[in-house]
């Protein structure tokens, strides 16, 4: 156990937790926008997978990670719009249609990988950016300020999202549409327009999350996300539909995963208990979900399609 409390190991563990948290944070922030407006999108994981493949393939072909990120954004926008069409305009049952998007993303990303790439091939990764001044701080610098650029961008979205949801007219409309769409509609707010916008934001960030995952790993493999999109949806509940809560949930999940891995590496957790330890992140997240989310009320109109006059 003493091996664990060394500077190198502690820094590595926290840095690992941050890396693991980033795709979850991006996807769950996007889903927060959608859910605050009353739309649940269970297709997040499918969009992440498509964004992951799109980002990976673009970097593989161009060698430019930023083109890969743009590809992830483009795919996210496209499937965000598609999800909005299905859920908002066509009024499909949100859970079922989301599962459909997920299965499409799962199968299509696999098919495209098989046909266009075939064998996992390494690609360039996001460049690392040491934050001047902060990266030199003992211990904390290595943990939090020596990451790839996308990590800082992801965390910068937290205060931005909080500001947009709580301090802007658009945010007020999101909240009103999520709480009482009939009242919002009577005041001249376009419920469908707001929901189209939020679901598209959610899709965009899901695509970015996928592309970030693939480019940060520098490789693609079938089902790369391994259901992270579903964890992200749960983290929105964990975070009580607030960006800061979503961030804390993502970090908790990432840190527990990283801690378990490191303790197994150092054999603090014996191999015989490996299976039990692997369940720790999910169990802790579920417990936190039960404790935290019960204190908050979900958006009243969540999962309810809106039709004027009904």
């Amino acid at each position, binding site marked *: 156990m003493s091996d664990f409390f060394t500077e190198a190991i502690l820094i590595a563990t926290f840095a690992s937790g941050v890396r693991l948290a980033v795709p979850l944070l991006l996807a769950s922030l996007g889903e927060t926008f959608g859910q605050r407006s009353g739309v649940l999108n269970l297709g997040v994981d499918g969009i992440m997978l498509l964004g992951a493949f799109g980002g990976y393939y673009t970097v593989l072909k161009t060698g430019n990670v930023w083109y890969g990120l743009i590809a992830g954004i483009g795919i996210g926008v496209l499937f965000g719009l598609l999800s909005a069409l299905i859920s908002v305009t066509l009024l499909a049952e949100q859970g079922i249609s989301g599962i459909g998007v997920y299965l499409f993303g799962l199968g299509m990303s696999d098919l495209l990988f098989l046909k266009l790439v075939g064998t996992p091939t390494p690609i360039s990764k996001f460049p690392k950016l040491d934050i001047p001044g902060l990266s030199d701080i003992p211990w904390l610098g290595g943990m939090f300020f020596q990451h790839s650029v996308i990590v800082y961008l992801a965390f910068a979205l937290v205060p931005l999202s909080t500001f947009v949801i709580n301090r802007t007219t658009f945010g007020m409309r999101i909240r009103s549409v999520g709480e009482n769409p009939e009242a919002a509609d009577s005041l001249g707010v376009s419920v469908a327009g707001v929901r189209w916008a939020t679901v598209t934001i959610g899709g965009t960030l899901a695509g970015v999350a996928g592309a970030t995952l693939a480019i940060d790993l520098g490789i693609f493999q079938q089902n790369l996300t*391994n259901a992270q999109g579903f964890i992200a949806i749960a983290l929105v509940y964990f975070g009580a539909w607030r960006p800061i809560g979503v961030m804390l949930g993502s970090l908790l999940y990432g840190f527990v995963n990283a801690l378990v891995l490191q303790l197994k590496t150092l054999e603090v957790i014996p191999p015989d208990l490996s299976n039990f330890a692997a369940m720790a992140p999910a169990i802790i997240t579920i417990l936190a979900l039960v404790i935290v989310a019960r204190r908050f009320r979900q958006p009243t109109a969540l999962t309810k399609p809106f039709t004027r006059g009904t």
Partner: protein
Amino acid sequence: MRSKKWSWVALVFAVALIAAACGDDDSSTTTSPDAPATTAASGGTETTAAAAEALRIAVVSPSSETDLAFTQSIVDAVNVIAAERGIPEENIDVTENMFNIDDAAAALRDYASQGFDLVIAHGSQYGGSLEEIAPDFPDVSFAWGTAADTKGLDNVFAYEAASDEGGYVLGVMAAALTESNIIGVVGPIEVGDAKLYVDGFVAGAEANNSGATVRVVYTDSFSDVALASEAAQAHVAAGADAMSGTAQMVVGAVSVANDEGVLWFGTQANQSSLGDIVVASQVYKWEVILRDILDNIDNGVLGGEIYVVDLENGGEVIEFNDAYDLPADVRQLAEDTIAGIIDGSISTGG
């Protein structure tokens, strides 16, 4: 309203758990919870006029045929056999990504009912399904692996790999090449073929270098690439300068090895394409046993035998990466170890 909310939470977690569980469903192979896809394997370059009379071979497998691991090993082997025997491409069929056992069972039954001569169930988790299906098709030969049991059925062959042997050789090499004397292993779930390989690797490393510390992490997932990547990062942070791992998710770990300049030792398929830090790979050559199986079928024997691929019969080989400048003495050490395992003077402890 509250009950509605919690039902959604339950649904989300249920789907997440199902997807995750599917990824971990395989006890000895790599898996990928992906949509089913049926593709014809490449190979069988000569299409003969007698295609309809040539043997027809089908493969049902849990992961992708390009996974650089378990599934790719059997598809490559079938392609070799097809080329050797002039079996036309249209007589070979592969159904990959059958992580769902019920889907796999349907595919196996479908192939049998179509009259394929040999139906390969490439996943130890398919045993239960095969036990139900094979008796319904007594004229069809099935091969099931990795397994050491034919279920008492006359039309089922079983096959497995002595993966501890190649693991031992690679462990010996890792122990010879490490400078930090710390070696990391990233495993999926501590069962079956993966455990056999990891145990062999550890035994080889410790036998060749008593001062070496070999740390093993099982991520408890065959498919979580991100977790494999972080496990490798943890090894590097703990000082490892040589690593190995098994299953589909190790590409994440190899990526870290590339970044950090850490040596990598692969298994199941040749992983040299992943970078010049790949020193060598244990490669399964299932064609060694497929030849015997097809000969048996030609002679009217449709099952009942158990095969093992190992270093001695050539079903396992160590393939060195030409892009890595392997010191001659380590290469010789590897060759000597292979020879020692084959002649019985070295025990892998497996």
